[in-house]
């Protein structure tokens, strides 16, 4: 599903001096895979995730998502592709403070131009599926961290993406809440969703099928 070839990401520090965040990344992710990206701080994990999520465009190399050569796409085409195929889960949940749970779930659908009736049905399904119907009118500030991340995951998958990217999804949660989220990820993966997560936690990484170790921008280890 994902194929990265010779992917590099660097920042200009001074005249002709570059700081490499990612170097010569070659990676393949099969459809239905569950990959955990690990490594110390500054290894380039989040950068890799944002490149996969097409939030970052300043990289070199080749990136295929399915049959599509992302490296040949214009920003607008990338945005369209991202909206069709990718969902994102953040460490800090990033729910919109002024929107209710229901409205937070509705937002990605509105950006994908679903009709209002369809959106209502999809949000309703998602509330049911995650058992948060009773919380649909609450604001994020009225939810616990675990509940917020639950909504964050629901929001990420509501538009039925093929690929779910998660940046430290349990980083702000206590262990039982973390486990709950990871089990949810497993369930989604079993249902066919491809997942790439960034994590510091060995335990969380163990929920996945594959672990990739990054250090100073290089892939240093790959384990099944």
């Amino acid at each position: 599903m994902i194929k990265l070839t010779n992917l590099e990401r660097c920042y200009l520090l001074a005249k002709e001096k570059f700081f490499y965040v990612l170097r010569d990344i070659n990676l393949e992710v099969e459809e239905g895979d569950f990959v955990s990206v690990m490594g110390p701080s500054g290894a380039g994990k989040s950068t890799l995730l944002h490149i996969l999520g097409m939030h970052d465009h300043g990289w070199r190399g080749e990136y295929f998502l399915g049959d599509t050569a992302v490296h040949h796409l214009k920003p607008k085409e990338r945005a369209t592709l991202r909206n069709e195929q990718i969902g994102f889960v953040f460490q800090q949940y990033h729910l919109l403070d002024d929107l209710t749970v229901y409205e937070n779930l509705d937002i990605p659908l509105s950006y994908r131009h679903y009709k209002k009736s369809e959106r209502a049905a999809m949000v309703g399904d998602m509330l049911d599926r995650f058992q948060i119907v009773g919380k649909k009118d609450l604001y994020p500030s009225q939810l616990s961290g675990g509940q917020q991340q639950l909504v964050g995951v629901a929001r990420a998958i509501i538009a039925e993406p093929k690929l779910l990217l998660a940046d430290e999804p349990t980083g702000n949660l206590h262990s039982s809440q973390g486990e709950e989220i990871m089990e949810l990820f497993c369930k989604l993966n079993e249902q066919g969703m491809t997942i790439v997560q960034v994590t510091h936690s060995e335990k969380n990484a163990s929920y996945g099928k594959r672990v990739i170790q990054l250090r100073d921008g290089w892939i240093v280890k790959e384990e099944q």
Partner: protein
Amino acid sequence: MIADLKFAVRQLRKSPGFTVVAVLTLALGIGASTAIFSVLNAVLLQPLPYPNFSRLVMVWERVRLPYYQSELNDVAPGNFADWRQQNSVFEDMAAIEDRSFNLTGAGEPLRVEGEAVSASLFNLLRLRPALGRVFTAAEDVAGGPRVVVMAYSLWVSRFGGDPQILNHSILLNGASYTVVGIMPPEFLFPDPANFHLAGAEDQLWVPIGLSPAELANHGSHHLQGVLARLKPGVSLPGVQAQMDGIARRLAQRYPQSNTGVGINLRPLRSELVPGATSAALWILLGAVSFILLMVWANLANLLLARASTRRRELAVRFALGAGRMRIVRQLLTESLLLALAGGVLGVFLTLWGVPLLLRLSPSDLPLFGSIGVNGPVLVFTLLISTFAGLAFGIWPALFATRYNVHDGLKEGARETAGGPGQKMRSSLVVAEIALGVVVLVGAGLMLRSFLLLEKAPLGFQTEGLLTFRVIPRAEKYSSLSQRTAFYQQALEKIGALPGVKSTAAVSFLPLSLYRSGKGFSIEGRPPVGPGEIPMADYNVVSPGYFRAMWIPLREGRDVSWNDTALTLPVIVINRACARIYWPNEDPLGKRIKQGLPGDPAPWLTVVGVVDDVREFDIATPPRPAVYFPISQFDGRGGLLRDWVVRTQGTQGNPNALVPVVREAIWSIDRDLPISRVRTMEQVRSLSLASQQFNVVLLGLFACLAVVLASVGVHGVTAYAIAQRTHEIGIRVALGAQREDVLKLILGQGIRLACIGSVIGLVASLVLTRLMSSVVYGVRTTDPLSLAGAAILLGLVALTACYLPARDALRIDPMEALRCE
């Protein structure tokens, strides 16, 4: 308090950008308000220069007849006599009649404006002469001694301030008058005409000396006002009631002359300051107040944004034990300091702006005090500065002190998009846009009115036309034939000058705010009831007047020098007269007579019909008018005052003819002064001056309003985007595209602009009603002005939103999400 002040100074110095923008914006608002107030103060608020001036009133006839209506009709001497005799509410009354004099004897002949007045006038005004005395009741009789009271300025300019002039004679209109008194320099004669005719200040006063026959005449209305002083303890409504009773009695006693003639009392202030002038000044003050409110709203917004950035500082203060009021006081000290700094700079702007304002102001603006920065103006500035400091400081201060200490102390504490600060900022922008729409609608109405006036058909051609005033007043011009001979000779001489295409003379030039309505009878028509007599404006003209003015002759012929006292008495009428009084007939050959059919006046035959001319001013539509040939007109007012000379081709400079025209007149009579030398274009411009003043100032305020509204919308949008960077990042990460972000940002601005515009339009519908007396040809609900203002401000708001919205499009979700 000193500590607060010190800290406020330090805070403002710490943010020089903010301080400079705030002080400059305030200075602009306060300076503009103070400048307008200084004019309003000099015109409307300064006391009139007469002791107990509030008890002085002008008394006019109010005429309401089928063919003639006038609120300020000239007064018949008989009515004046009866009012004076029958009332018990006035201390006394005095009649006033315009006079002008040719002052000769030493140096160049000089034309001097003056008045014939009742002897009681000076006592009514409670004014004494600087030298000598005023005339007595014994001198104010028909055929009484020729005495004159002189203005200080004339005494100094013409006679070098020589006190020996007292009890000596001067030559006025060729007759000898004894100077009995000199009025003090500050003496201002209460005649509105002084103000409306620039350079026509009264400088001589003679006794009116009404004869018993005149005092019994109720049909000839030629007194230009009656001045009266209310007795102590009586009120204007009570006086009006008594005078209404007198008018009713007179109408019963003299039905032919007094039916439909009432009495109109007007306080002297409103008499001297025309309603349109005072309305315009109040409107300008209103507009500039709106600008000031917009400035305050912008500053409140700035302070709100600043308060958000100072959350941590304020939280620390709270944590250290400061009470809420203590913090509010600190923040108010800062805003007051800003306001006072703005006020001081505003005063300097006023000092610079007032001369500019005076240059723009119409020359007929009646001033009762000096325009400039004086005591009352400084008090006004101090008041609005202090109020400004409190008004734009209090809300941000109260808002800033509502934060939770714990939240404020958190690093990176941020305000949510829909938080109370954002709501307050949005409300302020809505208010700003609403105020801006009102100012823009006002300016739009004024501009539309001005453009309509500019384009209003005058009925004659102003280009290439020189005008001046020469009045042959002397014994040698006492008979009709003498005057006619002079006019004919002078016009022939001027007409023969090189560069002159045609020339003529008329009793009063169009647009000179003069009209003389008289009743007439039409031959063969059934007698009319009291008050139903046809009316028309009367003008006396020389032959060739219509040709020189380029007033098209539609039917018949012009008057000619062959129309003499011995030939058929003829008149020319205008189309309005023909249309109203001979609607389905050819008026040529029809005969009319001044007054009633039985009166001894001769029948006058209509020999020509000319196009309608705006006689009184540009805004007043033409009324029925009758033109008499000077060679046949021997009655009261049988004088041609204003002369017109049309140059060859419209490109010629009329002023170039002045020296030769002057020589041509003086070659006939060296004692005739030539005054009011102007081109007809200048006369037209003078007539438009007050409208132009209003439109320029309101236009200026409208530009300011647009700038302030755009700055306000831009500021709020930019601030909101800065606050929402994180949120926009999330939205982009969730799939929001360029259009979605633009929609989000512009939507907010457009929503504010729409709400503000709707409120502004509703307010405009109410407030612009006050402008009805100063606009011409447009209704105050003019859809074009209303829609134009709303659309313009809407577009401005959209542009002001778009610029920060473009920045929002550049938000990198990675960066935005990291900044948490």
